[in-house]
């Protein structure tokens, strides 16, 4: 019997499927090439380091959002969490008060709590994550203002300011932290049971439940992770600008979600990779940096930025559909 009816080696198919990923990479490399040719200041070690540094905070948030979107959810509150956790950390980071671990732990704890609260409400009620996190986004902003009495929390210790502003062996700490977080998140998503469950929950929640997957716990975990990563971003941001700003992080949620989706995470859940998200964040960062270097007038920058993002993703998706 001729059972191998799928004669044409089908592994090409999967290989092609993965090749779809490269559409974005090609767009990204293309943009980098154009920038390298048009401005000599683009392709310098220093500028590339600056880009990665600038991208890092958005990338951290986008990692968190990627987990959440893969399970079919969304989190609009991360920008506010950046502010709350930043202000909370800053309040304990004045010189000669506590050792530097204290503000860091307090910031992370605040993020943990906040994210867990999102997860709790979302799993317990049947309210869509969009509304829950829109609510906590507003609540978080208010809390940041209350905590700081509406004023920036400044005068932070040097050791605290080092976390997000220092360099180790010439490499900015932000880049190092980004690399570690990227590896950690990738492993969590691809190599662990909980990561697999995230895909399952987002891919078909009902079937996941019927397969014995604890849906509620998975969701709790992703929103808590989102909170933790937002806290990390908040602490790094605060440290980098040496102040806890109650109005920091506004609009960060859209940038982070954009990075994830540009990177191929589907808003309907079930698909996405950390590599894609990182690439998405880098793409946004490179365009923004390039437009500044080319001294494009700020109004036109917005137009060009929007157009390039759409263009890059159109290219990417054309690539994918051709392959299928």
């Amino acid at each position: 019997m001729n059972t191998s009816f799928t004669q044409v080696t089908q592994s090409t198919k999967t290989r092609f499927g993965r090749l779809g990923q490269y559409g974005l990479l090609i767009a990204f490399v293309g943009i980098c090439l154009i920038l390298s040719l048009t401005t000599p200041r683009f392709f310098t070690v220093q500028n590339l380091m600056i880009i990665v540094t600038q991208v890092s905070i958005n990338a951290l948030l986008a990692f968190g959002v990627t987990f959440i979107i893969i399970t079919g959810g969304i989190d609009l509150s991360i920008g506010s969490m950046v502010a709350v956790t930043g202000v909370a950390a800053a309040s304990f980071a004045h010189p000669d008060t506590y050792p530097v671990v204290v503000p860091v732990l307090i910031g992370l704890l605040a993020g943990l709590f906040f994210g867990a609260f999102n997860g709790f409400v979302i799993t317990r009620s049947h309210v869509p994550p969009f509304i829950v996190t829109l609510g906590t986004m507003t609540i978080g902003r208010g809390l940041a203002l209350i905590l700081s009495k509406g004023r920036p929390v400044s005068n932070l210790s040097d050791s605290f300011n080092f976390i997000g502003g220092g360099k180790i062996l010439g490499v900015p700490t932000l880049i190092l932290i980004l690399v570690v977080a990227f590896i950690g998140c990738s492993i969590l998503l691809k190599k662990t049971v909980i990561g697999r469950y995230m895909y399952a929950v987002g891919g078909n929640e009902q079937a996941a439940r019927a397969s014995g997957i604890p849906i509620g716990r998975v969701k709790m975990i992703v929103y808590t992770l989102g909170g933790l990563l937002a806290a990390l971003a908040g602490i790094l941001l605060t440290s980098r600008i040496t102040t806890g700003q109650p109005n920091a992080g506004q609009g960060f949620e859209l940038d982070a979600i954009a990075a994830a989706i540009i990177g191929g995470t589907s808003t309907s859940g079930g698909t996405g990779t950390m590599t894609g998200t990182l690439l998405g964040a880098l793409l946004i960062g490179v365009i923004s940096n390039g437009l500044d270097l080319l001294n494009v007038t700020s109004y036109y920058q917005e137009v060009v930025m929007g157009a390039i993002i759409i263009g890059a993703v159109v290219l990417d998706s054309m690539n994918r559909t051709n392959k299928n």
Partner: protein
Amino acid sequence: MIPQPYMLEVTDLTKTFSGVVALDAVQLRVRPGEVHALMGENGAGKSTFMKLLIGLLTPDSGEILFEGISLKAANVHEVLKKGISMIHQEMLNVPELTVAQNIFLGRETTGGLFRWLDDSVRNKQAAALLAHLGVSIPPDARMKHLSVAEMQMVEIAKAISNDVKVLIMDEPTSALADAEVTILFGIIRELTQKGVAVIYISHKMDEIFTIADTITVLRDGQYIGTYPATELTENSLIKLMVGRELDRLFPESTTQPGVEVLSVQHLSRKGAFSDINFAVHAGEVLGLAGLMGAGRTEVARAIYGLDSIQSGEIHLKGQPITIKSPQDAIRQGIGYVSEDRKQLGLIPALSVKYNITLGNLSTYADGGFIRSQRESTAAVDVMAGLRIKAAGPDQPVVYLSGGNQQKVVIGKVLQANPAVVILDEPTRGIDIGAKSEIYKLIHELKASGIAIILISSELPELLGLSDRIVVLAKGKQTALLSKKEATQETIMRYAMQP
């Protein structure tokens, strides 16, 4: 009979998916008024073929002539308008809309001065159509509240509501019990008498020889041939389809039932079933019989923790247990293969491998980290054991043919090493070869001491495999029959008890 001219002529139709040939130069000639069966194993390309006809997919090459005019560039809308309609295998409906709105989707009626939507006319027409099909589904009920079987009837109603010339039916009866199949056949005969051509796809052999005039066979995307139904026997047809002779469908079992594994006492769930009592033993197959909507699936869901129960007890190996979620059930050693693989069985975007290992992932992990080697080996074993046809373990399960998807679900449940397995319509949509494999598998499971609860609407299957049969009617248990007592007639009698 004088051979009439062909209504539909397909020549050398070819379709590839990312380089993989799904259909290779297939032919089809359909005359008006005939029932033309399209036969082939799971994944032979039948559904793909029909989707090309209806305009949902575009062929790579080949010609489709309908009443002498080429259909090649036509889109779905145009094809539907020309009078070709299709009942889709995967039940394409809009869950939030009502039954009537689904039936007449794309053909809404408007009325009054402003030509606003007028659903009342359509509701009446839908009610009439459904009554004609012998079902009493309210036309204003939301589609999402219907059972699988009811949805299937609505799909049929939708297809025949159109003024059709060619009606394509892709496994219309896979979710139906004998009673409805009889009605459906009546309607098919009505239609063919009016000159409608019906292209009929099914894996149920008896249906084919009851209804089909002509049979076209596909194998692995290749055109094998077209034959008058009278020239073929069940065995010769199977041979054409699978390319070899099949063993006996229901092998003789020598396994003797062992100790009691699972029992339910006075199990009740409001609005679904009440006072259900039965026990299933190691190495035993307990059949659950009943008409559509009798509550068999509901009982299974409740045991598996998908629904809550109001009263009653479940005992596992003599110990009372409480099951609040499927997670509990799996932990206790209960497995469930759902009748609704699309909703409850599969994660479509994930690969075959990932779907198979999903229910028991921690076995392949150390400290939360998945050992991919171990996982792959297990998945490949399951795939080989169940003869799952796929490009490989990494192919997304959504691209598998229906029958192979079903095997993936079974594989997932089995590799969690359950003590009891509930199989709810396990052979729905499965080809004859795979069916015999699944029957063999059930015997193997029996022999290995697993207790099996089998829900099936195919009485021969139920009778051929079960050691004892529980009959449900309208949520009540009306009989518990031994193998000797159980015949088609007794089961039907108890199933229709008030």
